[in-house]
C-alpha cells in the first residue's frame, strides 16, 4: 500500500489508496523507519495514487514535516488532487512551503 524509493539524497514515498486515521499509524511507522535510518535531505510524499484523504492525512504530513526538520532535511508534498487539496488548504499547511 506504500512504495518507498531512494534516489541519491531523496526518499520518495508513493502513497496509495485512502488515507485515514486507520492507515496513518502504519504509514507513519514505515516512513519514519526509512527516514530515520537513511536520513535523506528531501522526503517526498507523492499523492498521485491517493483518491481519498481526511484530516488524518494533515497530521501525517505535519508529523513528517517536524521529523524532517529535526533531521535537517525538508519535506515536499506532490501530486495532490483537488478534493484532497481542500483539506490541506483548511489546515494552513501551504504556509509551510511544502506543497508543490
Amino acid at each position, binding site marked *: 500500500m506504500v512504495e518507498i524509493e531512494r534516489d541519491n539524497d531523496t526518499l520518495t514515498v508513493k502513497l496509495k489508496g*485512502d488515507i*485515514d*486515521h*486507520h492507515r*496513518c499509524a502504519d504509514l*507513519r511507522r514505515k516512513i519514519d523507519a526509512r527516514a530515520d535510518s537513511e536520513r535523506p535531505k528531501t522526503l517526498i510524499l507523492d499523492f498521485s495514487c491517493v483518491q*481519498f*484523504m*481526511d*484530516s*488524518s492525512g*494533515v*497530521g*501525517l504530513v*505535519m*508529523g513528517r514535516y*517536524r521529523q524532517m526538520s529535526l533531521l535537517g532535511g525538508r519535506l515536499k508534498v506532490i501530486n495532490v488532487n*483537488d*478534493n484532497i487539496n*481542500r*483539506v490541506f488548504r*483548511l*489546515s494552513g499547511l501551504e504556509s509551510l512551503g511544502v506543497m508543490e
Partner: protein
Amino acid sequence: MNIVNEMNLNFEAKSINESFARSAVSSFVLSLDPTIAELSDIKTAVSEAVTNCIVHAYGYQGGTIYINARITDTGRIIIKVRDKGCGIPDVKQAMEPLYTTGGEERAGLGFAVMQSFMDRVQVRSAVLKGTTVTMEKAIIRCAKNERPQ
C-alpha cells in the same frame, strides 16, 4: 420537508470501520446523483465524525457507533453520527480549528472539515453520555449533461 429514504447503521468503534462507514453513507447518497466533489465532501465529513468517535469519544477502548442517514424530498442528506462515549465538556472549544486532545499527530481539524464540507453541522453532547453530530448537505440537482465531467 419529507423524508423519502432512510438508513441506520451500527458498528464497532474500530478504526478499520472508518472506510466502511464512509463508503456505506456515500453509497446511500448515490440515489441523489451527487457530483464527485459532493460525494467526496460527504465521505470526508463522515470519516471525520467516525474518527472522532473512535479516538475521542471511546478513547480507543471500543464501543458502538450509530449512523442514521436520511434523504429529504428537497434533495438534502441529513447524517447523524452518534456515540455513547465520554462526551465533550466544552463543545465550543472542541470545534475550534487546531484544538485537539488526540496527541501531536492529530491535526485538530475534524470539526473544521465537517463545517467546511457540509452546509450545516450541529453537535450535541453530554459528559459520560455521548455525542451526536448532525450534518446536512443539499445535493445540487442538474441535468446529467450539464454536470462537469
